[in-house]
């Protein structure tokens, strides 16, 4: 595909309202996370007990929490945690799951295929959040283990999707032509199969990223995510729970933030799917 065709395609995607709105929200959050590396209104961990539970005003735009920390600053740093955990988890899961799926499809019907797919089923037998809780409970709470926890149940999602897509392609004529020209299974998988299922995989990655954000927040909420003083959205919700009747703003701000982030990424995923597959468009 030439560069100009790709640009035109990107232009038509942006005309889809879902892609435009979802993309804008997602980009905005990534930008906020990046800005937080160099600037936040206050230091996110700085406690100021006399100024605790302040409602939003000109000094603290989103108010302060139970320890007098600036909620906006905490949300900005929390965006970093949230996005980093979900992004790294989904990327690693795709890097493991996609080759497994390609490999299984190229050996369809063999013992290897059977073993790989049964291993996938095994992970699916555990409710996703239960795996995440067990992993973080066993290896200890923290960012790295949250990534592993979210990544583990995402691997089989990619493996299954890749295998299904690849199996549908293997009998096609252009693959046959590649085989006749002497290409091996690995080269065919990488050069012909992968580019043809990439669209589906990108859409799935978007959906998994949104689920990753929610899972990270849930883990942090029950105390198994990143540890204090590192702010995270889920932890902020947990801290605000006891004070929800006196300081509802402290519970609203992180909740709305998680909601907006997930909504944005989901809209982006839905829009991309519709744009890439005309059959599902309305």
């Amino acid at each position, binding site marked *: 595909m030439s560069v100009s065709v790709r640009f035109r395609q990107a232009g038509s995607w942006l005309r889809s309202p879902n892609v435009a709105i979802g993309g804008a929200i997602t980009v905005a959050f990534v930008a906020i996370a990046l800005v937080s590396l160099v600037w936040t209104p206050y230091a996110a961990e700085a406690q100021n007990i006399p100024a605790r539970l302040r409602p939003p005003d000109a000094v603290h735009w989103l108010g302060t929490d139970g320890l007098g920390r600036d909620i906006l600053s905490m949300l900005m740093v929390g965006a970093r945690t949230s996005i980093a955990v979900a992004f790294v988890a989904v990327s690693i899961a795709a890097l493991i799951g996609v080759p497994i799926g390609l490999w299984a499809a190229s050996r369809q019907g063999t013992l290897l295929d059977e073993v790989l797919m*049964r291993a996938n*089923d*095994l992970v699916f*037998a*555990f*409710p*996703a*959040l*239960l795996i995440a*809780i*067990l*992993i973080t*409970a*066993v*290896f*200890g709470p923290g960012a790295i283990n949250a990534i592993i926890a979210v990544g583990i149940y995402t691997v089989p999602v990619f493996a299954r999707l890749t295998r299904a897509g690849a199996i549908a392609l293997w009998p096609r004529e252009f693959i046959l032509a590649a085989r006749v020209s002497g290409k091996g299974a690995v080269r065919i998988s990488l050069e012909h199969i992968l580019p043809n299922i990439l669209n589906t995989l990108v859409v799935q990655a978007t959906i998994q990223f*949104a689920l990753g954000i*929610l899972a990270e*927040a*849930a883990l942090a*909420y*029950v105390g198994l995510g990143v540890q204090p003083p590192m702010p995270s959205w889920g932890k902020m*919700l947990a801290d605000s*729970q006891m004070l*929800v*009747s006196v300081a*509802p703003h402290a*519970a609203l701000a*992180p*909740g709305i933030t*998680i*909601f*907006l982030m*997930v*909504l944005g990424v*989901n*809209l982006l995923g*839905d829009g991309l799917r519709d744009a890439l597959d005309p059959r599902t468009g*309305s």
Partner: protein
Amino acid sequence: MISYTVGRLMSLAISLLLASLAIFLLLEVLPGDPAQFMLGLNATPEAVAKLRSALGLDAPLWTRYFDWLLGLLQGDLGTSYTYKVPISGLVIDRIGVSIPLAVFALLLSMLIAFPVGIIAATRRNSPTDVGIMAATQIGVALPNFWFAMLLVLVFAIGLRWFSAGGFPGWQDPVQALRSLVLPAVALALPQASILARVMRSALLDTLGEDYVRTARAKGLSRRQTLWRHALQNALIPVLTIVGLQFSFLLAGAIIIENVFYLPGLGRLVFQGITGRDLMVVKSVVMLLVFAVVVVTFLVDIAYAMVDPRLRRVAS
């Protein structure tokens, strides 16, 4: 059909066996000695060693695994390290909260999703449809534990219609059900949003099929075609998702039970993790996995009964 069922039963047994091994090995890696944890930091090494042998912790790994597995097969979930009572007793108490909660949430989810999905599909691209789809996007993106907090803020603290948490027990069924309303709503809403979207797209698929056009050409009204032909076929994928949602509800309940301080299986797992009561964690997690695998199996069988093509594909 029989050979299909037997085949599926075999793979169900293998899944459960592998799952038990995975859970057992995972929890073996857990740092910290349960005996040391139970006795505290000041315990003498002799006392710890004595308790270890009393708990059977000094037996070899495989012996412990097979003892546990044999126990499970006989319905013996082991003895809790911290409560010092049989885990089956603890589980039976907690199931009285967890199962009604999951069923309540599942029913609620279907009650919301089915009509909403049908309305959206039959009025495709109308403002109603667009509005419903937008609402489901919101439902999917809401973190359920935050939604639970909002429900508490409005309906428990503000309006005082429901309690903010806790469970009074089934002696008073009305109060018991009341205390499950907010948790069930919190669990059901995101699931209902997903289900409504599945219902809509499944119905749109069947409404475009030739047999639906034939039924209309035969002179059936739109309504008759919908109820007699399209809906029945659309329900197949929808019920698969309902089966899968059971697993989500069980896992989601772990968090929601913590928000509402409900004494369910989720809280039991949590207390087991924080108290290093590995026996409780192992057995309850195995029980949850068992429930998920069995429900998936039942959905597969139901699916194959409705759609004979699947039996051939699988065998």
